[in-house]
């Protein structure tokens, strides 16, 4: 269960979030968030539902715009990029959605081909097939290549969703609730896959979750979002070494102490 540590370069910050505010209508979600993700690191963001964890990674990937504050990703200031530049940057960011977001009308093969065909137009048919088969093999679902998303289980959909982002070989991965709604064994498999991706593809990742087993298994560093700010940061044990009544019940419930 202990997380294996791979090479992390703490001198190279790939995502730098500085004093970011975001609100929806009257509701303030993020209230001056600061966050750094280092090269090769798996960073877990913990927090209750509705605290703005998913909003944060959507801001980082440019799907949402912050009300104020700066976000630098791989040396580029996301707020200042135009659509074309943002599109280019996104090719280096993989995003695994909570509900996998597979294209319903396409087979698994077409889902995986989609980002490749559209962004690397000079690839031959054989090269595309090879890339698709390779990522599918990586997530252990080679047999599902011609299936429709509706024929897959939740865990399989998650894996295909991850495979679809890996096909562009991103530098950064964002996982939005990767284990939500899955049984414990499938959660274990997904957590192993996240670590495997970190090792094999040398990615830096942000994992959004409220599953503490997932946090413990995949996180090199953990931050906790409380009341719109990151108030706790460190290793799993350090985060929960507190009597803070906003943090402690989180731990107690997950491990049923």
């Amino acid at each position, binding site marked *: 269960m202990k997380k294996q540590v791979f090479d992390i370069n703490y001198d190279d910050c790939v995502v730098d979030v500085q004093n970011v505010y975001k609100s929806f209508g009257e509701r303030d979600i993020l209230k001056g968030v600061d966050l750094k993700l280092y090269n090769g690191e798996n960073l877990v963001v913990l927090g209750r539902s509705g605290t703005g964890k998913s909003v944060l990674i959507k801001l980082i990937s440019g799907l949402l715009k912050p009300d104020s504050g700066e976000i630098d990703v791989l040396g580029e200031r996301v707020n200042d990029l135009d659509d074309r530049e943002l599109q280019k940057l996104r090719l280096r960011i993989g995003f695994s959605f909570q509900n996998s977001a*597979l294209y319903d009308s396409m087979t698994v093969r077409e889902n995986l081909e989609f980002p490749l065909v559209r962004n690397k137009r000079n690839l031959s048919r054989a090269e595309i097939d090879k890339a698709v088969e390779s990522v599918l093999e990586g997530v252990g679902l080679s047999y599902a290549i011609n299936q429709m998303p509706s024929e897959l289980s939740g865990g399989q959909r998650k894996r295909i969703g991850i495979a679809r982002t890996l096909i562009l070989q991103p530098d950064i991965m964002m996982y939005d609730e990767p284990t939500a709604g899955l049984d414990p064994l499938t959660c274990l498999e997904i957590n192993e896959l996240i670590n495997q991706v970190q090792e094999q593809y040398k990615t830096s990742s942000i994992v959004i979750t409220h599953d503490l087993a997932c946090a413990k298994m995949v996180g090199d560093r953990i931050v906790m979002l409380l009341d719109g700010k990151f108030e706790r940061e460190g290793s799993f044990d350090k985060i929960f070494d507190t009597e803070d009544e906003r943090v402690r019940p989180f731990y107690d419930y997950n491990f049923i102490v």
Partner: protein
Amino acid sequence: MRNKFENLLIEFARIHRFNVRFFKELFTPPYEVKEIIRQCYEIGWKSFPLISLTGFIVGFVFTKQSRPSLEEFGAASMLPALISIAIVRALAPLVTALIASGKVGSQIGAELSSMNVTEQIDAMEVSGTNPYKYLIVSRVIATTFMIPVLTFYVAGIGLFGGYLSIISKDQLSMLSFFTQVFESIKFIDLFAMVFRSIVFGFTIGMVSCYVGYFSSKGTEGVGKAANSAVVASMFIVFIEELLIVQIMALLS
């Protein structure tokens, strides 16, 4: 009250941006030719059975209902001229647009909003694909191109329905029927038909895509988007019909 007014203005601004973006994306590469062809097939080809039946019935019933009035004045021989003008000038574009609003509009509205709800549009965006170009531009081009094609088809099949209605009572060869039809139709009528159907096609595409693309999250949003796509596009089609009729009357 002020909030409602503000929201209305925001909505207008969003619609304006949505329309402006369409023309901007339309002329910038890459061009989604494959997706446009696929949408033409989905929107055009798959509508043929429904459009065929509707067009035929409209032509047949209109002729049947018009006959007694013309017979009263001993002008039953004018039926081909009457139905050709009625179908080409008004019925074909309008019937095609209304059927397409129902079938194509609801299909586009529901499809895009369910993609929105399940984050498929976001997934497209983060994987380096411009979802506006891929989803919206291709569908609007397909409706703008296919509605005129369907309109011509409806006109043809409607006239055929009218012919069958005529020969159920009178003796008339198909050649002399169509000779009378083409003698009655002027170039301006055909131009008006094509112009109308292009406008209607563009409207149905834009309205359906807009409500689908900006649908509220949740399964309720899918139903609402499908419903709004049909209601709003039909409503706008009728307003456009009214305006185009006035403009054509001034021109001729």
